[in-house]
């Protein structure tokens, strides 16, 4: 016989508006084994919690049912109340009558009836709840940060400064990410390299940070506190241990490859560093453009290298890394605007996308900072087209947040570096950050022409050779406007990395429609995810500017710290166990478990479950024909009892 306490919450009016809470409490009192049935305005408030604690002691309750909001909201809160009053925290059931009843109906009859049915089910289930002790495991103190753009760099530094060991994994041959490609940053027009390279350098110098460039994650095992991650170190054909970065090899190399760093605007050598301040400042060889790999001869760089650091038969290697928490900061790509044929990107040489223009401005870029077009001319008239692919049902429905601001920055830089007229085709000028509106006013002051109308088409000018015509509707005058320009800059949508879905699958995250990682809660937990111990920061979660990215990076570092700062960790106790008496050795459980928790004990002839690896999904319990596996807290009889209770009314 159990002594059940039922506590019904009004949640102010949220529940009480469409569920007769006091009637519900009286109904609860009539159910068998219910000793105490009360309703109160705010169960999750301190007086509410104290009421439960007192009733437990006073009435010696051994099961608690809280009928309030979703268990995903306050199950932990009430578990702590039980633990504090000496009752095992798993002897608790939450009945969700807010999100799934009162908020989804206006009919108080319907709401109350459904609440009664749910409560009845909970009472059936509560009777069969068993006390569980959650297990404690040790936590690996290190943290892994994936992606070394400004978000990854910032998070790695914050963590390393607290004394924690950080593994910073970067797919590219240098850290820095897209920010290192920019010349200036809005709104302060700080030189991007000036504020970023010191941080990149402190990453290089920091004793707690292991930098793993040209690396990708290939496999993830384990769970929060004990991740076991396999990193694939791609072959660089240069032994960075020996290389002293004299870069003699890069002068001699005849190989010609398209420079990804300069967005394909210029060629680069086969053995190269992406940009002068690259960290590590040691070259890598690109197989596809190296004449040795292509035709089997050359090896000039090897001859020139005094350190004998060139090694053509280097293979990909795998590094095993253990970590207690992981921060994903994989950043973004710009949408490929070639499919939008109306803008002629890829067809007309005068059409550029934003990152290409960033490289044009950059003094380490292909044109040394001079704004010259692909055919060498300096543009006299430039049009910047906003919202290309963004805010567009047919491409990316989201607003990419930063294009208005960097388009304004472009306008300023064009005005500063050329004598060109600059036109901005925009829908809404979104300048909502600190100092952003002031920056917008400053740009207006610099005589930039703003046309409120989305760019509709870019066509070749029929009469002037090599010039383009931007067609749009100036919605303010309602006139169809054709603006002859030399250069068109597209501000494309920010979209997640092409492989963001594979990384999400590796770390067990879900993504939204576009492929941005899904946070645990959009407002209250934007940096954590549904997977314990995996955190996200920066644009991989959704488009944002550098200040927000840095803030998120610090936040993610703090959240990761909450895990690795403790050396022990309490794990959910709702794992599974095998009742050897009923096990018929069919080994179904061993075959299905995604975590390899069950194993077959040959000597005893039965299966057993390694509870450290078990995550409590219950798959083995449902494939076990003789129901020998008990999925704690969701056992067969608990689920069957709850179903019976739900169907009784």
């Amino acid at each position, binding site marked *: 016989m159990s002594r059940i306490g039922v506590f019904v919450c009004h949640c102010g009016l949220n529940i009480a508006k469409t569920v007769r809470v006091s009637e519900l409490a009286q109904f609860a009192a009539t159910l068998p084994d219910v000793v105490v049935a009360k309703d109160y305005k705010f169960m999750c408030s301190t007086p509410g919690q104290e009421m439960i604690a007192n009733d437990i002691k006073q009435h010696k309750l051994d099961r608690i049912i809280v009928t309030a909001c*979703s*268990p*995903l909201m306050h199950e932990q809160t009430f578990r702590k109340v039980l633990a504090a009053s000496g009752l095992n925290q798993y002897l608790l059931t939450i009945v*969700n009558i*807010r*999100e*799934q*009843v009162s*908020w*989804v*109906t*206006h*009919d108080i009859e*319907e*709401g109350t*009836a*459904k609440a009664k*049915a*749910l409560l009845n*089910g909970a009472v059936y289930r509560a009777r069969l709840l068993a006390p569980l002790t959650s297990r404690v495991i040790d936590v690996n103190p290190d943290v892994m940060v994936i992606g070394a753009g400004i978000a990854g760099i910032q998070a790695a530094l914050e963590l390393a400064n607290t004394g924690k060991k950080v593994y910073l994994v970067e797919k590219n041959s240098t850290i820095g990410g897209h920010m290192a490609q920019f010349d200036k940053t809005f709104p302060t027009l700080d030189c991007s390299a000036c504020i970023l390279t010191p941080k990149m350098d402190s990453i290089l110098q920091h004793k707690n940070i292991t930098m793993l460039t040209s690396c990708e994650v290939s496999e993830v095992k384990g769970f929060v506190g004990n991740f076991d991650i396999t990193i694939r170190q791609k072959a660089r054909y240069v032994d960075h241990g020996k290389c002293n970065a004299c870069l003699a090899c890069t002068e001699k190399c005849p190989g010609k490859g398209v420079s990804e760093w300069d967005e394909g605007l210029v060629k680069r050598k086969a053995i190269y560093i992406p940009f002068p301040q690259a960290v590590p400042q040691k070259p890598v060889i690109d197989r596809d453009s190296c004449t040795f790999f292509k035709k089997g001869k050359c090896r000039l760089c090897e001859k020139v290298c005094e350190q004998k650091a060139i090694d053509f038969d280097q293979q990909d290697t795998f590094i095993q890394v253990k970590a207690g928490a992981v921060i994903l900061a994989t950043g973004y790509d710009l949408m490929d605007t070639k499919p939008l044929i109306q803008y002629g990107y890829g067809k007309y040489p005068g059409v550029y996308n934003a990152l290409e223009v960033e490289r044009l401005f950059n003094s380490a870029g292909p044109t040394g900072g001079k704004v010259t077009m692909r055919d060498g001319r300096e543009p006299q008239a430039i049009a910047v087209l906003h919202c290309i692919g963004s805010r567009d049902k047919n491409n990316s429905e989201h607003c990419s947040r930063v294009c208005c601001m960097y388009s304004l920055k472009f306008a300023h830089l064009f005005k500063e570096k050329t004598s060109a007229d600059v036109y901005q085709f925009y829908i809404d000028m979104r300048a909502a950050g600190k100092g952003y509106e002031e920056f917008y006013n400053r740009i207006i002051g610099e005589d930039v022409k703003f046309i409120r109308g989305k760019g509709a088409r870019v066509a070749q000018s029929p009469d002037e050779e090599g010039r383009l015509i931007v067609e749009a509707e100036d919605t303010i005058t309602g006139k169809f406007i054709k603006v002859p320009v030399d250069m068109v800059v597209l501000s494309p949508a920010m979209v997640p990395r092409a492989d963001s879905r594979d990384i999400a*699958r590796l770390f*067990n995250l*879900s993504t*939204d429609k576009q492929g941005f990682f*899904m946070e645990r809660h959009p407002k209250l937990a934007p940096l954590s995810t*549904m*997977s314990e111990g995996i955190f996200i920061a920066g644009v991989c979660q959704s488009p944002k500017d550098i200040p927000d990215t840095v803030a998120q990076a610090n936040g993610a570092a703090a959240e990761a710290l909450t895990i690795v700062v403790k050396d022990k960790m309490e794990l959910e106790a*709702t794992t599974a166990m095998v009742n050897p008496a009923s096990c018929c050795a069919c080994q179904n459980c061993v075959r*299905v478990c*995604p*975590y390899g928790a069950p194993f077959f004990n040959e000597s005893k002839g039965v299966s057993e479950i390694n509870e450290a690896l078990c*995550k*409590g*999904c*219950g*798959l083995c*319990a*449902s*494939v076990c024909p003789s*129901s020998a596996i008990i*999925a704690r807290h*969701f056992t*067969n009889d608990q*689920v*069957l009892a*709850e*179903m*019976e209770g*739900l*169907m009784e009314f």
Partner: protein
Amino acid sequence: MSFEPKILGIACNWCTYTGADLAGTTRLEYPQNLRVVRVMCSSRINPSFIFRAFQLGADGVLVGGCHPGDCHYNTGNLYARRRLAVTRKILEFAGIEPGRFRVEWISASEGNKFAEVVTEFTRQIKNLGPQNKFKISQ
């Protein structure tokens, strides 16, 4: 009084249950015939739960899980897809209208899909009328 069906919902905690909560926070309305049991993964659902649900008098059973590839436990729902498909075929061959048992993949961000599915499924069950084949009459 028109026939008000009793529908049992079994929802996976990470996706469909969270989606149901989202339907609540965005104040979408849907009929209240559904009573939801929360399990950690759609793969926790033992086929015998479904047979027992119909025996307990459920007029319809709705199972909700994560989209294939989204499962919090990697492959849970991929096994569940096969097991629940076989359950469906057994129910159908035994004589239960196929419309009474339905499996839907609803992710944590698809609050509106959850509301639509529940509304449409409730209407479908109302048309099929009460289920008294498996039902154990007390």
